[in-house]
C-alpha cells in the first residue's frame, strides 16, 4: 500500500502543479504567493492520497463477503504509539507551514528599501462607493496638483501604497493579477502595497458584497512603462475635448468617457455595446430627454429617478470627478446616440 501512496502522491503533486491555477502574476508579491500555493499543494496531496488509499484498500480487502454476515472485526481499541504519531506529525507539518506563511507575509508587506526601489513609493488614494472606484494621485506624482480619475494607471517597478477608503458601505479593492485585496471600510483608512512588474491591463474587482450593483463594480488597472506613465500623467492635465471642438470630436470623446467611467457597468447603451441592467436602459429613457436633463441625471442622479429604480444607487460624485469639458462631451455624446 505504501508504494501505491507514494506513486499516487507523486502523480497528484505533478498534476496539482501543472494546473494553471492563477491569473498572470502582475506584481512582485504575486510570485511569492504563487510559490506558497505550490508548497501547500505539495504538502496537501499526500495527506489526501493517504486518506483515500486507506479507504479504498479497506473497501477492497475488508468488505463483508458472503458468509461473514455475523462476523465482527478484531476488538482493537487503540494504539498509543500510532496516536502519538498522528498527532505529532500533522502538528509539525502545520508548524512548518505557518512559519513559512509568516515569512511570506512579512515579505509581501515590507516597504521596499531605498536601494531596491528605483523610484520613490507612490501613495494612491482609492475611494470605493456604490458602485465605482475613483483614484487620487498625490501632488508629488501629478506634478504639483492632486488629481482624481476613474482610470488607474501604474508604472512597472515602482511600489504603490494604496490608501483605501469607502464612502457608503464596505467594498473590497482586489486586483487578482496582484493577488492582493483589502476591504474599503467606512470610517477608517486601510492600505496595502504592491509593486507592479508586468505590462498589461488587469481587472479590478469589488470582492465584498456592496449591494445591487456589486457584480458590476469592475474596473481595470493599466500597468505601463514608466515613460508611458509620465505621458499619461501629462495628458491628464489637458481637457478631454478642447472647448469649441466639433460635435464629432465631442461625441468621440464622450464615447471614451462613457467607457472609462464604467457607465456601462450599470447602464445598457447600444452605441457603447453595453447591456447591464442595474440602472435604466439609456436607449429607452433618454430618447425624449434634452441635454439639461441628461446633465442633471449625471451630476445629481437622484433629482429624477426612473420608475422601477431606487434612489441612492448611482454615485452622486460624477459632477466632481468629471471636468466641465468632459461633462459637456459626455452629455453631447449621450444626446446624440439616444435621440
Amino acid at each position, binding site marked *: 500500500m505504501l508504494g501505491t501512496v507514494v506513486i499516487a502522491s507523486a502523480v497528484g503533486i505533478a498534476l496539482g502543479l501543472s*494546473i494553471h*491555477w*492563477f491569473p498572470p502574476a502582475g506584481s512582485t508579491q504575486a510570485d*511569492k504567493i504563487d510559490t*506558497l*500555493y505550490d508548497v*501547500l499543494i505539495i504538502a*496537501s496531496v499526500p*495527506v*489526501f492520497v493517504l*486518506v*483515500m488509499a*486507506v479507504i479504498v484498500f*479497506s*473497501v477492497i480487502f*475488508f*468488505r*463483508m463477503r458472503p458468509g461473514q454476515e455475523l462476523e*465482527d*472485526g*478484531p476488538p*482493537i*481499541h*487503540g*494504539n498509543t504509539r500510532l*496516536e502519538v504519531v*498522528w*498527532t505529532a506529525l*500533522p502538528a509539525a507539518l*502545520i508548524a512548518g507551514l*505557518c512559519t513559512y*506563511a509568516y515569512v511570506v*507575509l512579512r515579505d*509581501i508587506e515590507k516597504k521596499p528599501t531605498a536601494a531596491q526601489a528605483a523610484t520613490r513609493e507612490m501613495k494612491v488614494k482609492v475611494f470605493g462607493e456604490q458602485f465605482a472606484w475613483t483614484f487620487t494621485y498625490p501632488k508629488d506624482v501629478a506634478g504639483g496638483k492632486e488629481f482624481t480619475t476613474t482610470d488607474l494607471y501604474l508604472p512597472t517597478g515602482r511600489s504603490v501604497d494604496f490608501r483605501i477608503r469607502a464612502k457608503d*458601505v464596505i467594498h*473590497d479593492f*482586489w486586483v*487578482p*493579477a496582484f493577488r492582493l*485585496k*483589502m*476591504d*474599503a471600510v467606512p*470610517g*477608517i483608512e*486601510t492600505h496595502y502595497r504592491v509593486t507592479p512588474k508586468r505590462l498589461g491591463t488587469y*481587472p479590478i*474587482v*469589488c*470582492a*465584498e*458584497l456592496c449591494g*445591487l450593483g*456589486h*457584480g*458590476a463594480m469592475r474596473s481595470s488597472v493599466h500597468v505601463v512603462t514608466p515613460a508611458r506613465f509620465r505621458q499619461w500623467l501629462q495628458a491628464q492635465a489637458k481637457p478631454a475635448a478642447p472647448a469649441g471642438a466639433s460635435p464629432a470630436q465631442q461625441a468621440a470623446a464622450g464615447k471614451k468617457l462613457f467607457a472609462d467611467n464604467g457607465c456601462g457597468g450599470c447602464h445598457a447603451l447600444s452605441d457603447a455595446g453595453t*447591456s*447591464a*441592467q*442595474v440602472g435604466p436602459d439609456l436607449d429607452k429613457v433618454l430618447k425624449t430627454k434634452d441635454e439639461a436633463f441628461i446633465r442633471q441625471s449625471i451630476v445629481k442622479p437622484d433629482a429624477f429617478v426612473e420608475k422601477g429604480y431606487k434612489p441612492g444607487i448611482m454615485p452622486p460624485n460624477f459632477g466632481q470627478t468629471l471636468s466641465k469639458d468632459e461633462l459637456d462631451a459626455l452629455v453631447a455624446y449621450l444626446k446624440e446616440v439616444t435621440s
Partner: protein
Amino acid sequence: MAVTAPATPVHAGSPHDERPLWRRPNLLRAALMFLVGSAFAYVLVGFLRSVNHYPNAWHDWNAVLTVGLLAAPMFFLVGLGAFDYWFYWAAGKPTRPEDHSGHGAYSWRDYFRVNTDHKVIGIQYTVHSFVFLLIGGMFAMLMRAELAQPGMQFVSPNAFNGLFSVHASLLIFLFIIPVFAGLANFVLPLMIGAPDMAFPRLNALSFWLLPIAGVMMLGSFLAPGGSFSTGWTAYAPLSTTAPIGQTFFTVGVQFAGASSIATALNFLVTIITMRAPGMSFFRMPLLVWANFSTSLLVVIATPFIAASQFFVLLDRGLQFNFFNAGKGGDVLMYQHVFWFYSHPAVYIMMLPGFGIISEVLAVKARKPIFGYRMMAFSLLAIVVLGFTVWAHHMFVSGMQAWIRVPMMITTAIIAVPTGIKIFSWLATLWRGVLRLDTPMLFALGFITMFTLGGISGVMLAMIPFTIHVSDTYFIVAHIHYVLFGGSLFTIFAGVYHWFPKMTGRMFDDGLGKLHFWTTFIGFNLTFGPMHLIGIQGMPRRVADYADQFAGWNLAISIASFVLGLSTLVFVYNMVVSWRGGPRAPANPWRALTLEWQVSSPPPVFNFDAVPTVVGGPYEYGVPGAVHGVFREPKVPATTGAPTVAQPH
C-alpha cells in the same frame, strides 16, 4: 408512522378536551392570537408615534412591520399552547406534576401541536428541516440557472442577492443546525437510557420557534424592496441601510438562535443528569459526546449573534448608529461580534456529524472505535480552539494587522484534533468487516470530502494565500466541501442509519446507493471546479461575471442540476419506505448502543425498565460483550405494536 394506542389518554387537542375549539391549544387558536399580536403591534406603534407627535403616526408600515415581526410570533406561540403549563404554574393554579397530556403521537395531528415527547419532537425537527433543505436547494438551482451564462437572464441583481442570502440563511439556521438537534433529540435520550429530555416543555418550545424563523426568512420575499439581500453575514452598514426585508433576517435569526440555545441547555442538563446507572462519561457513545461539545459551543457562542443582530435592529429601527461611521459608529465591530458566534457555528454544524459518523462506522465496520478517549478529547479541544480563531474571516477586513498571525496559528492547529478524528476513523475501518450499505457509503463519502474541505481550510489559514482568495469562489468551494460534503453527508448517513428506529420501517438500500452515487458525483463536479475559478479571480456573490469564467460556470450549473435532482431519489425513498417499507426489527444493524435495544419505533416512554450500563458502547468483536442490560420486565425485542406505557 404514528404510534397507535388502544387507550388514548386525554391529551391536549384531543376530542376529549371539552373546551370549544378556539380555546384549545392548537393551530386555530395560534392563528387567532397571531392576528391579535399583529393588531397589538399596530396599536402600540401608532400610539407611541402619535403621543410623540410624529408625522404620519398611524401609517408608518416599516415601524409596524418591525414591531410586528417581534410581537406577532410571541402571540402565535401563546396561542399554540407553548406556554400553557407555565401560565398555570405562574397563576398558582393546581398543576399536574406527572402531566403527560402533551406526550406522544397517536395520530398525524399530534405532529402539528406542542408535543413534549422527544421522539415526536425529533421527527418534527427532522422533517421540518428537510423541507427547508429542499427550498434552500431550489434557490441554489435558481442561482445556478442565472450563473450558467454571463450577463443577466432570469432574475434581477436584487433578486439574485436575495436568493443567495436566503439560501445560506435557510440552510444554516433552518437546516443544518436544527436537523442535528432533531436527530439528537430522537436518538440521544434513548442512547443514554433516559425516558425523555430533561425539560420536555422547553424542548417543545424550542421546536416551535423554528417554523417562525423559517417562515419569516421566506416571507421576506414579499416585503417591499424585496428580501434581505446582504448575504447571511449581513455586514453593517449594508444591512443597517437596506430595505425592510433585512429586518426579516435580523429578527428571524433571533428566533432560530433562541431555539438553539434552549435546545443546547436541554441537551447539557439531559446528558449530565439523566444517564442510565453505570453510564460514566467514558461509557457514553460518541454521538452523546459530540452533542455535549456542540451544546457547550451553542450556549457560549449563540448569544453573540443575537447581540450582533440586535445592534443592527436598533440601528435600523431607532438610529442608534452603532455601525454608522459618520456618527462615531464602528463598522468592524459588527464583524468581530458576528464571527465570534459564526466561527464556532461551523463546529456547531460539524461536531454532531462527527458523532453520527462514529456511531455508523463502529456498527458497520464491526469494530470498536479506535482511540475512543482521544476521540472524546479531540471534540473538547475543538470546542476550546473554536473560540480562538474567529478573526480568520477578517484577514482582509482592515482590522488591526497583528491579530492575523495568532489567528492563523490557532486556525491551523484545529487541524490537529480534526486530523486525530479522521485517522481514528480510518483505523476503525482497518481490518473490520465492512457492511457497505447506504449509511456506510455516506460515512465513507464524508471522510473523503471532509478531508478535502479540511485541507482547503488549512490553506485558508495561510494569510498570504487567503488575501488573494477570500471572498472568491474558492471560499464557496471550501464551505460547501465542509458543510455539504461534510455536514450534509453525515446527516444523510444518520437519517438512513436511524430511519428504521424512527419509523419502524426499512428503507430501500438500492435507491439509497443510487442516491449516494448521484450525490457524490454531482457534488464533486459542482463544487470541485469552484476552487479553480476562485483562484483565477471570480468573486463570490455576483449575479454577473467576466466572460473568461463562462465555460466553467456552465459546467458547474449543469452538474448542480444533477446534484439537485439526486435529492429527489432520497425524498422518494423516504416517503415510500415510511408509508410501506418492510417492518424494521428492533435492531437491524446488530448494534450495541441502547437505542437499538428497544422496539422500532420505541415505546412512548422509551424503556419499560431502566437499563443498567455495564460496558463501553462499541465492544464489537469481544465475545459476549454488551453495553447495557435490562432487569425485568424484559423489553420486547420483536417488532409490531410497541408496548404503550400508561401515562402514570
